[in-house]
C-alpha cells in the first residue's frame, strides 16, 4: 500500500520533532489521540446538559405545573415560583434532542472513536491531515459554545423541536424561541456541519490511503468499516442539512420564501409566497434519517469488536457484517420519507418509502443474529464493555422491532408523533448508541488514558442504567398506542389521558434514578484519569493493532517501524495456537491458513 512509502517520511519527521508545549499538546493538538480525548470530554459535558434537561421535562410531565426547586434553581425567570413555563418546556425538549443527537451521539461518539481508532487500528502514524483534524474539533467546540450560549438569550432558546420545521422556526411571532435563539441554533449547526464534513473527509482519506502493509480492506476490524461508511454517509447527507439551514436563514433574515407561503399571523398577512414547509421536511430528513445511522453504525462497529474480544471468538459472519453495513448505508439515503407519511406529500410516495424502509429490517436482522451467534459457545468475559455491548444488542432489538410498525405507512398514521415514536427511537438509536459509546469508553479507556476504570463501579453503572432504560422507554410504547401526543407541556387538558398519569410518573422516576446513576460513570471516568490502576499494554488480550502500541502515548503511535499485518482481526481461539488470541501483526505459522473470509 501507499502507506508503506509514507512510513519513512514520517519516521524521519519523528526524529526532528519539537517538544510540544502545553498549548500544542493539550489545546491546539494535531495528535489524533489527544483530539479524540477532547471530543470525548466535550461530548460527556454536553451529555450532562442534555440528560439534565430530559430529567427536568420528565418532572414537568409527571407532576405538571407543580413547583419544583430544581426548576427554580436552574430555569430562573422561566420558572416563576418554580413552575415551569410552557415555552421553556418546548425549548428543553428541542435542545435536549439537538444536543443528544448531534453533539453527544454524532460528535461525541463518532468523533471520539474514529479519531482514536482509525490510525491505531489501521497502523497509521496519525490522520491524513492532523491540521484539518484539529480544525474539525475546534469548529465543533465553537458550535457547542454557541449552542450553550443560545440557552441564555432574552427570549429563550430555540423551541420548535429538534426538527425545527418552519414556519414555527422561521417566525419570531409564532414562538418566542424563534428569535435570537433560533438564529444561534442555526449558526451553531452550520458550524457543526462544517466540522463534521472536515472530520469525515479526513476519516475517509485516512482509511483509504494510510493502511499499513498487509492491512487490506477485508482485514480491517469492523470498527473501521463502520467509521468509514459512517463518514461517507455524513459526507453525502450533511451538506443537504447545511443547505436547508442556509435557506432557512435566508427566509428568516432576508425575506425569501423558500419554505413559507400564505401566512396570516397576529392579525397581519406576511409577504411570503410560493414556498413550502414540505420542501424543508424533505431536506431536513434527507440528512435526518441517515443521521440515525451516522449515530448507530459506529456503535455497531464498537460493539462488534468488543463482543468478539470478550467472547474470545471471531465475529460471526465478518463478510455479512460488512455487507449489511453497506446495505444499511445505501438504504438509509432512500427512506427519509417515512418521517413524512402524514406531511401531505403524495400517498404514492408513502408507498415507496414504506417499501424501502421495511427493507432496512433485513440487514438489521442479519446483524442482530450474527451478534447472538458470536457469543454462542464463547468463553464470555463479563467486562463492563461487554455488558454494555450485550445491552446494546438487547435495546437495538427491542427498539428496532417497533420500526416495522412505524415504517408501515398505514400504521404510522395513528402512532405518528406519539410517545410510541419516542419509545422506538430512544431505544433503537438513543439508548443503543449511548450503550455503544459507554462500551467503547470502558474498553478503550486504557488506550486513551493509560489507566483502567474501576470495574465494580462499571457494573453498578451498567445494571442500574439497563433497568432504568427499559423502565423509561418500554411503557412509553403503551401510552403512545393510547394516542398520547409527544411535546405536550401537560396532558391535564385532556381528561381522556388521565389514566396515563401514573405511567408517566413511573417513567419519570426511572428517568431520575437512571440519570443520577450516571454520576457513578462520571466519577469513575474522571477519577480514573488520575488515580485509576495503571493499564498493561493489552489488558483485554485483543488482536487489533492499537494494543501493540506503548501504553504511554507517543507522537507517531509506534516507536519504530509500523507494524505489518498478516491476518484478519478476529483470530480468537483459533485451533492450533496455544493462546486464545493471535494479534494481527503475528505472521502465519508454517502451514497455517488464513481464514477465507
Amino acid at each position, binding site marked *: 500500500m501507499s502507506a508503506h512509502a509514507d512510513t519513512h517520511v514520517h519516521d524521519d519527521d519523528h526524529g526532528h520533532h519539537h517538544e510540544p508545549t502545553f498549548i500544542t499538546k493539550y489545546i491546539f493538538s494535531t495528535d489524533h489521540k489527544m483530539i479524540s480525548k477532547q471530543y470525548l470530554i466535550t461530548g460527556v459535558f454536553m451529555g450532562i446538559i442534555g440528560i439534565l434537561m430530559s430529567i427536568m421535562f420528565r418532572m414537568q410531565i409527571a407532576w405538571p405545573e407543580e*413547583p419544583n*426547586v*430544581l426548576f427554580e434553581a436552574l430555569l430562573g425567570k422561566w420558572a416563576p415560583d418554580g413552575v415551569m413555563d410552557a415555552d421553556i418546556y418546548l425549548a428543553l425538549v428541542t435542545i435536549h434532542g439537538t444536543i443528544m443527537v448531534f453533539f453527544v451521539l454524532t460528535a461525541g461518539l463518532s468523533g471520539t472513536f474514529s479519531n482514536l481508532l482509525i490510525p491505531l487500528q489501521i497502523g497509521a502514524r496519525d490522520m491524513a491531515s492532523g491540521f484539518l483534524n484539529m480544525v474539525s474539533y475546534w469548529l465543533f467546540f465553537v458550535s457547542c459554545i454557541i449552542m450553550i450560549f443560545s440557552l441564555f438569550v432574552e427570549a429563550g432558546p430555540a423551541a420548535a423541536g429538534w426538527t425545527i*420545521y418552519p414556519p*414555527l422556526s422561521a417566525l419570531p411571532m*409564532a414562538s418566542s424561541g424563534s428569535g435570537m435563539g433560533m438564529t444561534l441554533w442555526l449558526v451553531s449547526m452550520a458550524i457543526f456541519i462544517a466540522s463534521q464534513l472536515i472530520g469525515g473527509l479526513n476519516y475517509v482519506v485516512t482509511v483509504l490511503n494510510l493502511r499499513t502493509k498487509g492491512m487490506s480492506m477485508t482485514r480491517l476490524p469492523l470498527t473501521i468499516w463502520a467509521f468509514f461508511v459512517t463518514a461517507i454517509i455524513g459526507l453525502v447527507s450533511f451538506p443537504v442539512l447545511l443547505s436547508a439551514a442556509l435557506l432557512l436563514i435566508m427566509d428568516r433574515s432576508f425575506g425569501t420564501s423558500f419554505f413559507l*407561503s400564505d*401566512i*396570516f*399571523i397576529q392579525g397581519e398577512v406576511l409577504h411570503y409566497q410560493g*414556498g413550502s*414547509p414540505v420542501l424543508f421536511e424533505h431536506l431536513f430528513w434527507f440528512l435526518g434519517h441517515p443521521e440515525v445511522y451516522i449515530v448507530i453504525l459506529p456503535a455497531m462497529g464498537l460493539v462488534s469488536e468488543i463482543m468478539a474480544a470478550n467472547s474470545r471468538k*471471531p465475529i*460471526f*459472519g465478518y463478510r455479512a457484517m460488512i455487507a449489511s453495513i453497506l446495505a444499511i448505508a445505501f438504504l438509509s439515503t432512500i427512506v427519509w420519507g417515512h418521517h413524512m407519511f402524514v*406531511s401531505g406529500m403524495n*400517498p404514492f410516495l408513502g*408507498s415507496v418509502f*414504506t417499501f424501502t424502509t421495511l427493507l432496512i429490517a*433485513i440487514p438489521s436482522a*442479519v446483524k442482530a*443474529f450474527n451478534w447472538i451467534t458470536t457469543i*454462542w*459457545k464463547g*468463553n464470555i*468475559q*463479563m467486562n463492563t464493555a461487554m455488558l454494555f455491548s*450485550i445491552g446494546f444488542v*438487547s435495546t437495538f*432489538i427491542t427498539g428496532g422491532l417497533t420500526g416495522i410498525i412505524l415504517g*408501515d*405507512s*398505514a*400504521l404510522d*398514521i*395513528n402512532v405518528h408523533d*406519539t410517545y410510541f415514536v419516542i419509545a422506538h427511537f430512544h431505544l433503537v438509536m438513543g439508548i443503543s448508541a449511548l450503550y455503544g459509546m459507554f462500551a467503547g469508553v470502558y474498553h478503550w479507556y486504557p488506550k486513551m488514558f493509560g489507566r*483502567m476504570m*474501576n470495574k*465494580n*463501579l462499571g457494573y*453498578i453503572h451498567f445494571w442500574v442504567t439497563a433497568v432504568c432504560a*427499559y423502565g423509561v422507554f*418500554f411503557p412509553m410504547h*403503551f401510552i403512545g*398506542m393510547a*394516542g398520547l*401526543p409527544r411535546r405536550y*407541556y401537560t*396532558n391535564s*387538558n*385532556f*381528561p381522556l389521558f388521565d389514566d396515563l398519569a401514573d405511567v408517566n410518573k413511573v417513567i419519570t*422516576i426511572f428517568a431520575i434514578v437512571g440519570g*443520577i446513576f450516571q454520576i457513578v460513570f462520571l466519577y469513575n471516568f474522571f477519577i480514573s484519569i488520575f488515580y485509576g*490502576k*495503571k493499564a*498493561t499494554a493489552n*489488558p483485554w488480550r485483543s488482536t487489533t493493532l492499537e494494543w501493540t502500541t506503548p501504553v504511554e502515548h507517543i507522537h507517531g503511535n509506534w516507536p519504530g517501524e509500523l507494524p505489518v499485518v498478516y491476518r484478519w482481526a478476529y483470530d480468537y481461539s483459533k485451533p492450533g495456537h496455544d493462546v486464545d488470541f493471535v494479534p494481527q501483526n503475528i505472521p502465519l505459522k508454517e502451514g497455517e491458513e488464513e481464514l477465507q*473470509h
Partner: protein
Amino acid sequence: MTALFIILVLVFILIAIWQMVKIFDLAQAGLPENDQVATEKDNTINAYLMMGFLAFIYIITIVCIVKWGDLPLLSNSASAHGPEVDNLMIISLVLIFVVQTITQFLLHYFAFKYKGQKGRKALFFADNNTLEAIWTIIPVITLAGLIIYGLFTWTSIMNVSEDDDPIVVELYAQQFNWKARYSGADNTLGKANVRLIDIDKANILGLDESDPNAQDDIITSELHLPVGKPVLFKMRSQDVLHSAYMPHFRAQMNCVPGMVTQFGFTPTITTAEMRQNPDMIDKVKHINEIRVENSKDLVAKGEDALDAYEFDYLLLCNKICGKSHYNMQMKIIVETQEEYDAWIKEQKIFKNSLVKN
C-alpha cells in the same frame, strides 16, 4: 416537593454505594495488575444477573400488557377503515412480541450459559452460509408479507374516491385553535386564501366573498359528522404546521400553510353509541375515579374540583406549533343523519355571518 425528596433519597443511596465500593476496592489492594479485568467470579455474578435481567424484560412486558395493553384506543376504532388498521397493528404486535421474546432469550441465555470459565475454550466459528441464508430469507419473507398487507391498507385508506359522494369539510388550523368549514347545500367549498382574511368583517378564514360557492359555507368550532357517511377533510393552516390527529378514527394529516392537504374516512359509531360501549364505560369510570381522587387535593388547596369526564371524540393538534400546542383541540360529535341535519340547519351560513358595514 415529592420530586425533591426522591432526589435527596437517591443521592444518599448513591453516596452509600460509592462508599461501599471504596471499601471493597481498599480491601482488594495488593492484588496483581490487571485486577480491573473481569475474573471468573465477576463472570458468574454477571451471568446470573443476565438471566435476572431477562426475567425483568419479560415481567415489564407482561405488566405493561396487562395494565395498559387493552386501551380502548387499540381496539375500539370508530371508522370504516379502523378495523383494517387495527388488524394489521395486532398482527405486527404479535410478530414483534414473538421475535422479541425469542431473541432476547437467546441473547441473555447465551450470555449466561457461555460465561467465561477457566479451561473453557471458545469455539472458532467464523462463518456459516446456511445459517446466514436462513436469517436473511426468513425476514425477507415476513417483511414481504407485511409490506404487501401494509401497502394495500395504505392505498385503500388514502384513495378517497369522489364517487362515494363524500361530505366535504375543511379543517382549518391556527395557533391554537381549530375551525371546521362545511360546504353547505352545494357540497362545494368556496375559494379561500389567508390573504382575504378580514377580521373587521368577521371573515376569519379568508373566504372569497365574491365566490358563489362560498356563500352557503358554514364555519363552526365543533365538528359534527353524520354516521356512516364518507367525509373528506380538506385541511388548511393559517400560520405554522399543525397536525389534525383523530386517534379514534385512525386518522391524521398535517395542516400545511400554503397548501391544502386531505384525508377521508367514514365514521361508523356515533358518540352516543361509543359512550355505551362496555369498554368505554369502564375506561370513563376509571378516569372519573382518578379525577375524584385528584379533586380532593385541589379542594383541600381551595381550588375548584375537576368536572366529571364524559367521553367525546377529539381532534388534537399533533405537530409542535408553539406555546399552547398542548391545548389545541376540538370536540368531534358523530351523530345520526337526522341529528346532523338538525344541527347544521341551526348554523349560520357564511353570507349571513359577515359583519355588514
